[in-house]
């Protein structure tokens, strides 16, 4: 079997698993109902209980899981290829931290309940501010190391301001609300919210997907990549803007969901022969699968209140990160 055909087979397999996980995500929940009957009811416009649950609760949740998961997997693969480091994750440039801060400020000023788009718009505003700062920095010729340092600074500042908002929060309920939102979740989002952020996310996906060739060239170092015709400044702008748009918008809707962007590219890398370009799409599909699976687990684990998705991914992801660091320590290659 040739490399190209085994890569296509992997993509096909991931796609099928993703569809199966999405179907399971639609079918599994707190209310048992017949998925096929509910689908027929939705299509025929009959407002049965099943149809309402499917349309108002399950479908937005599943779509959001697909979109957020694909974003995190794709952006993680792009970021690891861009930084040539298997420990990188999409949040490293500070966009997710800034998006979280934007949403937290909406809570803090009591705007979250005023209109349904307030939260995502606040998150997007935060991501846009951070994205513009990074974009300007990359455009003025800053090195990749400078960009990471800027990301660290943005993350620290956003974290400090979130802590400040919690500290000064007008009521304990507001503080709890903020804490819960920060844990990340796909529950109780509307289709309208999903469609609000979808255009920006899709543009971000495209920007990241077309960096494939440059990321391949970059595995030989910046100089050789430049000699192969890939402008490093151009690549930095693409990765920064793609990640800002896709990840920033995702976080604005779902809150920060950690470790998906770190773990998925790492798991799939050997299956694509470590080729950065081939990892992009595979990792996006894998991210969607993992996010949906974790969200199904959240619904199956019977706790009150419901476990937050970001909590589950962190509980799975953190030990994985430790094992990864342990392996890298022994094997520097």
């Amino acid at each position: 079997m040739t490399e190209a055909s085994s890569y296509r087979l992997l993509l096909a397999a991931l796609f099928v698993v993703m569809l199966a996980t999405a179907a399971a995500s639609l079918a599994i929940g707190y209310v048992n109902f017949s998925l096929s009957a509910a689908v027929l009811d939705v299509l025929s416009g009959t407002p049965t209980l099943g149809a309402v649950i499917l349309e108002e609760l399950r479908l937005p949740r599943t779509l959001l899981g697909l979109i957020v998961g694909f974003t995190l997997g794709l952006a993680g693969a792009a970021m690891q290829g861009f930084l040539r480091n298997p420990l990188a994750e999409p949040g490293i440039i500070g966009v997710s931290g800034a998006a979280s801060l934007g949403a937290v400020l909406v809570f803090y000023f009591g705007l979250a309940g005023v209109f349904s788009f307030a939260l995502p718009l606040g998150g997007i505003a935060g991501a846009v501010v951070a994205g513009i700062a990074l974009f300007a920095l990359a455009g003025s010729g800053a090195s990749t190391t400078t960009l990471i340092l800027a990301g660290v600074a943005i993350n620290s500042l956003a974290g400090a301001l979130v802590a400040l908002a919690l500290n000064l929060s007008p009521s304990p309920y507001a503080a709890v609300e903020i804490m819960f939102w920060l844990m990340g979740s796909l529950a109780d989002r509307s289709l309208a919210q999903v469609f609000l952020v979808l255009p920006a996310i899709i543009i971000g996906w495209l920007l990241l997907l077309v960096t494939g060739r440059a990321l391949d060239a970059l595995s030989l170092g910046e100089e050789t990549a430049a000699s192969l015709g890939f402008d490093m400044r151009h690549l930095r702008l693409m990765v920064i803007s793609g990640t800002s748009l896709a990840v920033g918008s995702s976080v604005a809707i779902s809150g920060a969901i950690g470790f998906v962007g770190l773990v998925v590219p790492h798991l799939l890398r050997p299956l694509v022969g470590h080729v950065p370009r081939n990892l992009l799409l595979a990792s996006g599909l894998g991210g969607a699968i993992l996010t949906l699976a974790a969200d199904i687990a959240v619904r199956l684990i019977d706790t009150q209140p419901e476990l937050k998705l970001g909590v589950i991914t962190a509980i799975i992801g953190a030990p994985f990160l430790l094992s990864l660091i342990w392996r890298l320590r022994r094997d520097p290659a």
Partner: protein
Amino acid sequence: MRIDARRISATIGGRTILSGIDLAVEPGKVMGLVGPNGAGKSTLLRVLAGLIPPQAGELLYDGRPAAVLSARERARRIAFLTQASRLDWPLTAARLVSLGRLPHRGLLGPLDPDRDEAAIREAMAATDTLQFADRPVSTLSGGERMRVMLARALAVEASTFLADEPVTALDPAHQLQTMQILRDIAGRGTGVVVVLHDLTLAARFCDSVALIAQGRLAALGVPQDVLTAAMLRSVYGISPYITENEGELVIIPWR
């Protein structure tokens, strides 16, 4: 492709690395760049490759300003082999060599897969690396890895080949083989510039030698005229042992 450098100067971080360099890279010829560490050989190679813009002077590709050529077109015409053979992912040798075909790849896939395949195979056969095709490059020795990197640069099938110390990590047999490869591609019309520290290899395999010292061109010409005892003494501060074998120069640093 012909490259003309006219009165080229280059500064990096405010420090002048090269000044007033005049030379021409001609199709079908091998030019050796020799000189002490830190003389500016690698910087000159990068300027010729279009990777760093000259501070002053003119760089011409086929008689036209270098900046006219798009990065992609330049990448198809100039293959560049760096000294550093680092690789961040454990790609197999075959996949690594295939990166040399990136300038010939479209956004959605290869433009001519058969030609890519042939170029990769030919480059690996010439460098004696076909047996490593399926091995991760991280498991190869330094010299083996260097040959895979050489194959990567050959796979570009560029009309100009710029190589920075391609033989430094190689055993004697592969040093000779690599120099012969450079001669062979020159025989097919490629202009070659190679940074070397081995003066005998420079004398035997290069049509011309540029001796660089402290960022300036100390001498440029056929090896017999440039690599003289007097010149080597003034540039390196060494007394070489120079002799002939089978009608070719042998230059050994002696004291």
